[in-house]
């Protein structure tokens, strides 16, 4: 495209949101076309018709989950356990960090710095090669534990900043009316802090789902692993990867929309 064409394209998209949307769709179609043409050039055989059998199988009139669906179940199961453990570890870490115990805050700080300054993948290898033989844990739980400690470092920070963000004056007001420290937490600080924490905590679940894909490195049979296995068997790289990415996107984007909704609600209330 030359300059005048670019300018014309620009002016068109300024005219109305519908035209801009149309342009966007044209652009996306163009991107798709480039991908498809590239695939055609390397003689790629599209086999989309083979995909459904990896999602579900029908046997004697009854539906059974296909390979990818089974993988998705494992991903969701990991996410479920991780969420619970992450909240627990994150909460303990946050409390230890804010406590007046020197060893507690030291331990929490060391843990946070180590997790923040090493790659998740290296942590996973450490857990898999070093800690899991020591503790005799299987692959699945190795993955769960590793992800838990990784995500919990973020959760700890979310909880801490949520509590810190409650105005100092609120503590002082609590003191002024003679509330104990526990009651001040329970009736004044937490009711204000928890709504603030909810959107970022939900965002953290999204990250958890995304990061859980990494356990395919240690061959936990999650969605990504199943996808890689199928590709190794059938060479349907494009179809499987797009399907896998699509499944992740559906889940994470749904949660993203939920987070946006939560954030708006919190903002209205405060």
């Amino acid at each position, binding site marked *: 495209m030359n300059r005048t064409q670019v300018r014309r*394209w*620009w002016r068109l*998209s*300024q005219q109305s*949101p519908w035209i*801009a*949307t149309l342009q*966007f769709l044209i*652009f996306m179609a163009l991107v798709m076309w480039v991908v498809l043409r*590239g*695939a055609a050039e*390397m003689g790629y055989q599209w086999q989309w018709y083979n995909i459904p059998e990896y999602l579900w199988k029908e046997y004697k009139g009854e539906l059974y989950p296909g390979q990818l669906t089974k993988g998705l179940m494992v991903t969701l199961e990991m996410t479920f356990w991780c969420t619970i453990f992450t909240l627990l570890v994150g909460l303990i870490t946050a409390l*230890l960090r*804010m*406590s*007046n*115990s*020197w*060893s*507690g805050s030291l*331990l929490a700080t060391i843990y946070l*710095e*180590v997790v923040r*300054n*090493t*790659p*998740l*993948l*290296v*942590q996973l*290898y*450490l857990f898999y*090669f*070093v800690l899991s033989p*020591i503790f005799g844990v299987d692959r699945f739980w190795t993955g769960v534990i590793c992800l838990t400690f990784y995500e919990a470092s973020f959760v700890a920070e979310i909880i801490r900043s949520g*509590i810190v963000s409650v105005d100092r004056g609120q*503590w002082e007001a609590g003191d002024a009316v003679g509330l104990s*420290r526990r009651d001040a937490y329970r009736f004044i600080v937490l009711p204000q802090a928890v709504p603030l924490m909810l959107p970022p905590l939900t965002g953290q679940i*999204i990250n958890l789902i*995304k*990061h*859980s*894909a*990494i356990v*395919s*490195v240690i061959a936990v049979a999650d969605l*990504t692993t199943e*996808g*890689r296995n199928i590709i190794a068997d059938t060479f349907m*790289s*494009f179809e499987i*990867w*797009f399907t*896998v*990415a699509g499944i*992740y*996107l559906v889940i*994470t*984007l749904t949660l*993203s929309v939920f987070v946006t909704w939560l954030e708006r609600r919190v903002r209205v209330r405060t």
Partner: protein
Amino acid sequence: MTAGRRNKKTRWSWIDLLVIAAVIAFVVFVVVRVETVLRYTWNWGHVMPFLAYVDEDTGRWVTNLLLEGLILTMRLAVIGIVISALIGVVMGLCRISNNLFLRMVARTYVELVRNTPPLVFIFIFYFFLSSQLMPLLGVDDLARSDSEFVQWMVRMVAGDPSLFSNFVAGLICLSLFEGAYITEIVRAGIQSIPRGQWEAGKSMGLSGFDVMRNVILPQAVSRIMPPLANQFIILIKDSSIVSLISIQELTFMAVEVGVSTSRVFEVWILTAVMYFVICYACVIVFNWLERRAERSKR
């Protein structure tokens, strides 16, 4: 916080006892398991030469796999942050443009990247890049070029020319991935400048471009730098993922050394320490720079 009201003197509480007991129990359990059940014999002497060793013929220190891996990791991170910052600035400007088409393109890019697992993103892109884009761009030809300058550039960028195309593919994957996060950093930085600054600039008859260049960007840059520095550290860490597409950076080398020596405990602890040292050093340096910048602002 309430903790600030207490005196700073070290005091022991029941929490300390609990924490220390837990730590001791953990350490004892690990040591007992390693020594008696697994019967693992530590041999650091076997692993350390993979960092660097003394060549017996020349008597000089020679870097070995792990250190070379670390160097490649740093190459990826440094070149990667430049490319992804470029992507981030362009996309960030699109993201706040008043042109809906550009906003939609940038938004799609950001949401796609941020909502797919990094692993899946890298696999898809690597597959696509290495099979289609690399031949198209003629990267392989570049690496085989006769020109001395090109050869020098290739060596500077990738180290080993024979792995150049592979390196470039990994680099592009990583940059596209991080670019989405930097896009949001740039957007947030620009949007954090109060609307009044735009209005003041415009009310004096400056064009949108002039307001952006002379008023908004200079202020936005100082707000973008700290999160960008942080993103550099994240980039160092995220670069470990490209080991899965056979880029021979630190994590890849660690897997290799672990397999060939079967000294997995030492190798992985050493690798983690290497990453930690690099990242933590960056944290310290960036914090120092930030404090200095704060101070110079009067």
